């Protein structure tokens, strides 16, 4: 029987992991909800922005907060670049072609990063304190990342609900044809959405850089789970993705401590498969 202290620690770690996963999932889901294309290579944009953080901090000596802000800018530019170069020309194509195009981008980005920076693992080294409260250890890096991720998500919510362009983004997500008929320019909305989604990838990169080494295949660890969370929450459903992030992270964490690390992932993935049968449209949709 596992000590309740360790179980509580696992629950807190799950919560903190969930914050970062939610940030990744919301960026991807925002883009899907508006543009209706899944960016399979989304986490690879995060990887590129992580390299930016690494070089700015470790090579050019920037403070981490400034490098993080720069990463948000890099992410936004990457989002615009991907939209203009890859997504825009295939907006009217069959979904399978769109998937293949963004999948191709994934391999391109991984190979390009290998070519430029080799396969070495690079770490941003920061002296962070170890937090211990009543025998429970909490990762300081994760705590910071969690708080910033939650603030960013609140910021995104306010942006989408309180600004003109945010309202337009939501309107396009609900009915893109009607928006065009009403005289709005969906291309501008798509571009802004891609920039915001990219900026969230940049922010995620800044927060992940203090927890993980970056290497060209970073996307292999987070890409599949981010995509699964989006599907579990309902593609395009922001609240669903947010809730699904915490469900998955808690199962991984508590399942890992209660049974085994592998079993935590097995249960999370099994739940995903079951939910695809029970709620194929996402956990928050009503069964038809």
């Amino acid at each position, binding site marked *: 029987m596992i000590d309740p202290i360790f179980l509580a620690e696992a629950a807190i770690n799950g919560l903190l992991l969930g914050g970062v996963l939610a940030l990744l999932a919301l960026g991807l889901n925002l883009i899907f909800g508006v543009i209706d294309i899944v960016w399979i290579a989304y986490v690879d944009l995060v990887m590129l922005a992580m390299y930016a953080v690494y070089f700015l901090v470790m090579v050019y000596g920037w403070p981490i907060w400034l490098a993080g802000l720069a990463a948000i800018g890099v992410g936004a530019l990457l989002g615009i670049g991907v939209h203009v170069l890859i997504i825009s020309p295939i907006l009217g194509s069959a979904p399978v072609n769109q998937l293949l195009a963004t999948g191709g981008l994934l391999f391109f980005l991984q190979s390009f990063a290998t070519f430029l920076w080799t396969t070495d693992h690079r770490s941003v080294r920061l002296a962070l304190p170890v937090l211990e409260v009543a025998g429970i250890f909490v990762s300081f890096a994760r705590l910071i990342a969690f708080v910033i991720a939650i603030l960013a998500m609140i910021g995104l919510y306010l942006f989408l609900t309180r600004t003109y362009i945010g309202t337009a983004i939501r309107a396009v997500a609900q009915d893109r044809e009607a928006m065009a008929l009403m005289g709005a320019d969906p291309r501008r909305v798509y571009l802004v959405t891609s920039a915001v989604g990219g900026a969230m990838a940049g922010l995620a990169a800044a927060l992940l850089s203090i927890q993980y080494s970056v290497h060209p295949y970073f996307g292999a*660890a987070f890409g599949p789970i981010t995509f699964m969370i989006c599907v579990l929450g309902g593609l395009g459903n922001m609240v669903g993705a947010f809730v699904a992030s915490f469900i998955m992270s808690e199962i991984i964490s508590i399942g890992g401590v209660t049974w085994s690390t592998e079993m935590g992932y097995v249960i999370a993935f099994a739940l995903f498969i079951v939910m695809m049968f029970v709620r194929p449209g996402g956990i928050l949709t009503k069964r038809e």
Partner: protein
Amino acid sequence: MKSLRVLLALVLVGAVAVTAAPRPAADAQSQTIKIGLLYDHSGPFSAAGSLNCWRGAKMIIDYVNERGGVMGKYKIVQVDGDSQSKTEAAINEAERLLNVEKVDILAGIYSSAHAVPLAEKVDRQKKFLWITTAIADAVVKDRNLQFTFRPQPNGSLFGEASVQYVAHYAKDRLRKAAKDIRAAIIYEDGPYGTGVAASNEAEARKQGMQVVLKEGFSAQAPDLSSLVTKLRASRPDVIFHTGYNPDIALFLRQAKEQGLRTRIYVGHGAGHSQLAKLKEAFGNEVEGFHTTDPPASQLIDPKRLKPGVWDLTQEMVKRYKAFEPTIPVGQIAPHVSMGFNNMWILLNDVLPRAIQQHGGFGPEALAKAARETDIPEGGTMQGYGVKFQPAGHPMAGQNMRAIAAVFQVVDGEFKHVYPPVVASLSNPPVLLPASSPFAFR
């Protein structure tokens, strides 16, 4: 929008054109032996040792070619394949090298997850496979492979050596009898990790240690915090860890953040042996860490080697500078030796005998020559001898004279600390230093 797209595309193409460098084509000659080198040039295994193995293999091929080739007249044509750290890519690349490039010998293979399916496939085609790196017993065990040979020590030796080392120093350093030692075994869940962990566990039980936790994980897992929590709960004196990368770096980061403390930390090869890279990520916090791998040639006492062998080690160290000019000799990964030394055994011992005594370098001739290999201890750069288990033996094709060594990071550099036959430090610290963030206080 269109002009912006064209501009962005031009910038991207320009960036590729500026940074891309032309690569020289292989120069085939009349008397040549074509060797396919299959390692991971991309994907996570590359930085976890595969690239260093390839560098070692390439360096010895270049060295032999500069002296006229095998026996002074058979030049080696090196054809590279990239396994991409994926099993299916490794199989496809092996197929290309063997049946499109028509290589005479397929050599290399870093990951056991690749070697297990590959060895059987290649052997079924009656093609010659020379494994320089992958260690899992399952690669050759109970398969009676006829054309597959592995000079490298097998995984069981790794798991046994590391536990025997801890048992050897238990009383003196831990002030405990072996039966009181709390051992935790964690491992990536592929053939490499499971194989080494199984021998860790078997040897720990043989030594009477308490195995307080044994748990596997995926090398691609995005989070290992639950594993760290369980390790803390099990209060181990020693952690035996078999992983690749990036899982090792992730584990260490999370272990530090979550206050995991232990007294002895023993890794087994792969990312644990890339000391220069570990130091980039963790600085001096890796002081006192161990890895278990075949001996690193440059750490062997030259007096233990046959005449002339040490000169080759110096050649290896000199040539490695071209790849990594800033890495000190004491931090060069043993993977460089695995590629260099194990290919040297093929080029210097097996191939000449195949040509001179068995009529060429076809698979049959090479297999016969390999079975006759009989190099005594001290006869190779890594110190061990070479004699392959014969056909019909449960481990047919495995070098029965290979050994695994335990290394410890002392004053920032690797030292061989076990077994005594290769130990360059007879009285190692064993325990993590008190200054280590991972050390039990």
